[in-house]
Structure formats: C-alpha cells, structure tokens
C-alpha cells in the first residue's frame, strides 16, 4: 500500500482548481464569469457561521444526520474474515448520499439570489435530491435525464415530477448521464442570469469538484468518529463505489492522511473490463478533457467519448472526479472494478443476510468488500460506504430475474 509523506488534506486543489494535472476550468467563455462568481460565493459562505449553522441544522433535522454506522456481523461471519461496517447513507432523506450536496448547493443558490435550479441525473438519485431541496426552498427546478435512464429509473422520474420538478428527456448522444450533463451545461449557458446548476458529483469545472467534496466530506468525518467508538480502532480499509465519485471522496477525504488506512475505490466493470463494455475510466481509461475538467476518461484513439455500460445507472459515466484521478496517480487510493454479476450477488447477499436492500451502485462497493474480507484477519475492520438504498432498482433486478413488476 503506497502512502504519501506530505499531508494531502487541505493541500489540493490549487487556486484554479487543479489536482496536479487534473481538474481545472475547461468551459466555454460564457461560463467563466459565472463560475468565478460561484467560486467567490462558495469561499465566502463556507466560512460564514450563519450559513454553516443553517447547513448543519438542515443536515440534522431534514436529512437525518448523522447517518448510522452499522456492524454487519452476520455477513462478516459468513465471509469469514474482517469485520464489515456499513456507513448508512441509504438511511438519509431521499435514500442516498446525494442530498448532503444538494442541500449545500441549494442554500448557496438562495444566498446568490438564484431562482431557478437545474441538474443532471443518471440513476435519478441526484435528480430526486435536487427536486427535493428545490421544493423545500420554493425554487423552480429542471432536471435533465437521458432517455435510456428514464426508461430504467421510472420510479425516480415520477418522484421528481411529484416534487414539482420538470424532467426533460435528453435524446442526444448515448442518451445517458453524460448527455444529460451536456444538456444541463447548455441550459446553464442560456439562462445564466437566474439559474444555479447543481452538479451531483465531484466532476465538472472548478469549483464543483472541491465544493461537492466539501459538502460530502461529512460522511467521512462522521464515520471516522463512529468507527473508533464502535470498533475501538481505525478501519484497516475503506471501500466505496466510484462513478463520478462523490460518495467515495466524501468517505475517503477525512482519512487521506491516515497512512495505515487502505482505501479502495470500486468502478463498474459492467460486462467485464476485457469486454470493453464497462464504466471504469480509472482502471481502463486514459486522461482527457470533458465536462469542464481534465481527468481519466473512456475515450477512443481519436478523443471521442465512448459509451459506457453498467447495470447501475449511477455509475454509467465515462469520466470521474479529478481528485480521484490525482489520488490514483499518487498511489493513495487503489481503484478496482466489479462487474455486473458480482454486484448483483452482493446485492442479494446483503438483502438476505442483513435485511438491507442496497442500491446497485453501492453493491459494487459491497462486492469488493466481500472479496477483501476473507483475505483479512477477523480483528481487522473494513468500512464500506452504503451510499444508497435499492428501492429504485427493484425493476432492474426483477427484470434480470425475468419478472415484471
């Protein structure tokens, strides 16, 4: 396990949003001014006591934080190795970690006097979390979602509509998350004066990667205290799934300087890395520029972005947050991949053994933990981010088993 000598926390990004060669600001000129405005607002309010107090009150009373840390004893025993603890982000309001970030950005939007919120969504979790906070704050909300994702996440589409959001289908390109992001960017350029774009992951132009990380880092801060109370020690390993990478960076960030904690980010191997049909840019892609930042991408030899595949809509994205790209190169985090079948097995295992139905995204992290645990001692501890619950995936899983709900 490689470790860095210099402290990582607080050292990155630089003032222009670079994590080493990654990150930065690669956007059309029209967005440069508004992004500078956002950066200033974000920097101002993150040290503003009233803002922080409001955010913390919302996280406690609206989201339901702190989220529980749960020792999956039966599953750990069955796997016969390390003790697995689950950080229960699935218990948050709206059922996933996404709301930690949308609450923060929506409060910022209000402070900045914006009246209209836009977002992109893949699995629909970020869309729901955005529609939720927009409803609560009385802001107009438009969510862009690829047609393919709309078809496989009907329940979330309906939830967003119930919440008063307009869900706009995106039919360009691969009709998934990346195209929804393109469309949201186009909307933002067009309605820059009154619109705040709530990006759901730690990607995009600066300051989004650092801002979303800071809003999600509450996961790791809580988990770091909880695990020491419950297990009486620091974890030996952290595991989280990585699509764009917001739940992962949220868990990892407060542990980055704990050299003895091994960290694993789990990408979606889809049909298998060798098949080419996957969504694992860190494991099998290369650096490039997309959606406002330089990072690892799934791309062909001509620099065209290629279509990704994963059973989980939330991991079906050809890029990844720039900080993950940096953490990979720095050797601080190990990025691995889990395929559709392995994720499904873990989905069923946790459901049957612990009575917790995980999201298919989180099932990738669980599947890797299930591989790792038997190689470790019973006294060792693996902390897994259970980033979301699986209610939204009922149709997908039922369809695989030949059932129609």
């Amino acid at each position: 396990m490689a470790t860095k000598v210099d402290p990582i926390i607080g050292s990155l990004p630089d003032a222009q949003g670079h994590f080493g060669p990654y990150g930065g600001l690669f956007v059309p000129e029209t967005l440069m001014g508004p992004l500078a405005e956002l950066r200033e607002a974000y920097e101002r309010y993150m040290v503003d006591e009233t803002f922080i107090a409001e955010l913390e009150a919302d996280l406690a009373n609206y989201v339901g934080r702190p989220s529980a840390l749960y020792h999956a004893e039966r599953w750990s025993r069955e796997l016969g190795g390390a003790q697995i603890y689950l950080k229960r982000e699935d218990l948050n309001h709206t059922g996933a970690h996404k709301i930690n970030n949308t609450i923060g950005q929506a409060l910022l939007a209000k402070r900045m006097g914006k009246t209209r919120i836009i977002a992109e969504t893949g699995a629909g979790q970020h869309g729901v979390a955005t529609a939720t906070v927009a409803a609560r704050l009385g802001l107009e909300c438009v969510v862009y979602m690829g047609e393919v994702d709309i078809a496989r996440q009907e329940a979330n589409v309906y939830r967003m509509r119930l919440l008063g959001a307009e869900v706009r289908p995106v039919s360009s390109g691969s009709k998934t998350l990346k195209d929804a992001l393109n469309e949201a960017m186009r909307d933002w350029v067009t309605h820059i004066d009154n619109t705040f774009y709530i990006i759901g992951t730690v990607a995009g132009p600066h300051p989004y990667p650092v801002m979303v990380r800071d809003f999600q880092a509450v996961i790791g801060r809580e988990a770091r205290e909880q695990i020491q109370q419950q297990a009486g020690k620091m974890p030996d390993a952290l595991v989280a799934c990585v699509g764009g990478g917001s739940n992962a960076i949220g868990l990892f960030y407060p542990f980055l300087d704990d050299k003895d904690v091994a960290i694993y980010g789990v990408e979606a191997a889809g049909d298998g890395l060798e098949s080419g049909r996957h969504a694992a840019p860190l494991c099998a892609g290369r650096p490039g520029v997309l959606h406002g930042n330089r990072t690892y991408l799934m791309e062909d030899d001509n620099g065209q972005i290629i279509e990704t595949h994963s059973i989980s809509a939330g991991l079906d994205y050809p890029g990844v947050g720039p900080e993950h790209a940096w953490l990979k190169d720095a050797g601080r985090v190990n990025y691995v991949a889990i395929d559709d079948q392995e994720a499904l097995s873990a989905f069923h295992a946790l459901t049957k053994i612990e009575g917790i139905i995980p999201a298919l995204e989180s099932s990738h992290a669980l599947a890797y933990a299930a591989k790792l645990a038997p190689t470790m001692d019973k006294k060792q501890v693996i902390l897994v981010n259970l980033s979301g619950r699986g209610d939204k995936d009922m149709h997908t899983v039922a369809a695989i088993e030949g059932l129609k709900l």
Partner: protein
Amino acid sequence: MNRINVRFDKLKEIGRKALIPYVTAGDPTPQTTVPLMHAMVGAGANIIELGVPFSDPMADGPVIQRASERALKHNISLRDVLSMVTTFRKMDDITPVVLMGYLNPIEIMGYECFAEQAKQAGVDGVLIVDIPPEEATDLLAALQKVEVYPIFLLAPTSTPERIKLICDAANGFVYYVAIKGVTGASHLDISEVAAKVAEIRQVTDLPIGVGFGIKDAETAEQISKVADAVVVGSALVSRIEAHADEPQKAKNSVVELLLSMRKAMG
C-alpha cells in the same frame, strides 16, 4: 504572414466586412466537405470555419450537435479533418481556414503534434470552445511555434479584465458570442452587440467577428455594420441537414444563403 492577416488587411482596403461560414467537417459525408468549402468561397466567404466533430459538443445547439453525430457516423477524426484541409489547399492557397471544435481530440493527438500537422495541412487558426487562456499556456506555445493563430471566444458575460486577458492571448481575430446561449439560438439584440463590440474595440486592434444566432441576410447586414466579420453556422448546417441525402442540393442551398448575406453586407 498568416492568411488571416492578409485577408483582413485586404478587406479593410476595399471597405468590406468578412463573411465567415461554419460547416462541420464530414457532414453529411466525408466526400462533400471539400467541394462545399470551395463553393462557399465562390459564394463570397472570406474565411472558412471548419468544425471538428466531437461526441459531446456542450456549447452547441441541436443543429450542430446533429451535424457532429452525422459526421461521427463516418468516424471523422481530427486527422481526417486535417487531410480535408490539405485537399482544399491544392486548389485554394489564399482563403484562411480556421478549425473550430473541442479540446479532447487535440489532447489525445498531443499539442505539438497537432500544431505541426495543422500547419502542414494549411490551417491558419484554431478556435477551441472549451479552453480559456488560463488553461492554454502549453497549447498557445505549440501554436505560436508554427504561427497558427489561437482564436478565442468573448461572451456577453466577459468582464473587462477577461476581455483584456483574452485579446492578449488571441491572434488573427477575436470572436464575440452575440448571445448567452448555444449555437443556433435566436434572440440576438443588435444594440447590445454593438455596445459590447465597442467595448472590445477599446482593448484590442484585432478584427472582431460576431456569431451565434445570425440566421439571415438582414441580421448579417446589421452585424456587419458593427463588427469586422460575420460568422454564420447553424443556419447553413440546417440547410445541409435538410438535404442530407442530396449533396448537390445541400451545396446549392448553402451557396444561396451565403450569396444573399454577401449581397446584403456589401
């Protein structure tokens, strides 16, 4: 001397404004692009902007997105676009050609390799939508070495500081995006454009082109009164799309619009 300078100097001498059509390379097929470029020059185009297709054109409206998709069905790569310019140059060594597109295909090729090949092909300028000067240090150095000009966009949201920064980094001309929006949108306000162009003129001696939302001869004429160049893209690409199966008709339709614009602009 770069062809772009020669062209603007010449136009200034005779008191005319530049007409700059944009088409996406390889749309609807790879064979149609070079003949179309020559036809556009024949119809009064002074500089040609050639779009490099990209899978995720986030600054473009639906018309140019679909053009990119049509071109990518033929797997048109940056190398293919450069070879189209090489072919174009065999019959036209004076009309400036500016490549317009997104950064990633250039990243993959490598900045120096791209700059050298662009120069060799006869490219005069490069406009990359998603790289501001702040991120462009290495790319600018590579382009400068071969005297291919970096063209940058200016927007309604550009602050005076940014206008200065961008004009200092740009060469050949600067391109003012007339609207807050994507290519092909339609709510262009001439007096706002005139005010912003005047503001830009205070900062730079570079010629100023205006584009995004210029659809017809009338708008082209109005813009030509305040700017040095009129850029027209989506309006032409729509015509190509309308006749995607009939290249000759598509060409005629593009020529017809350009002729009317040229006539209106004087």
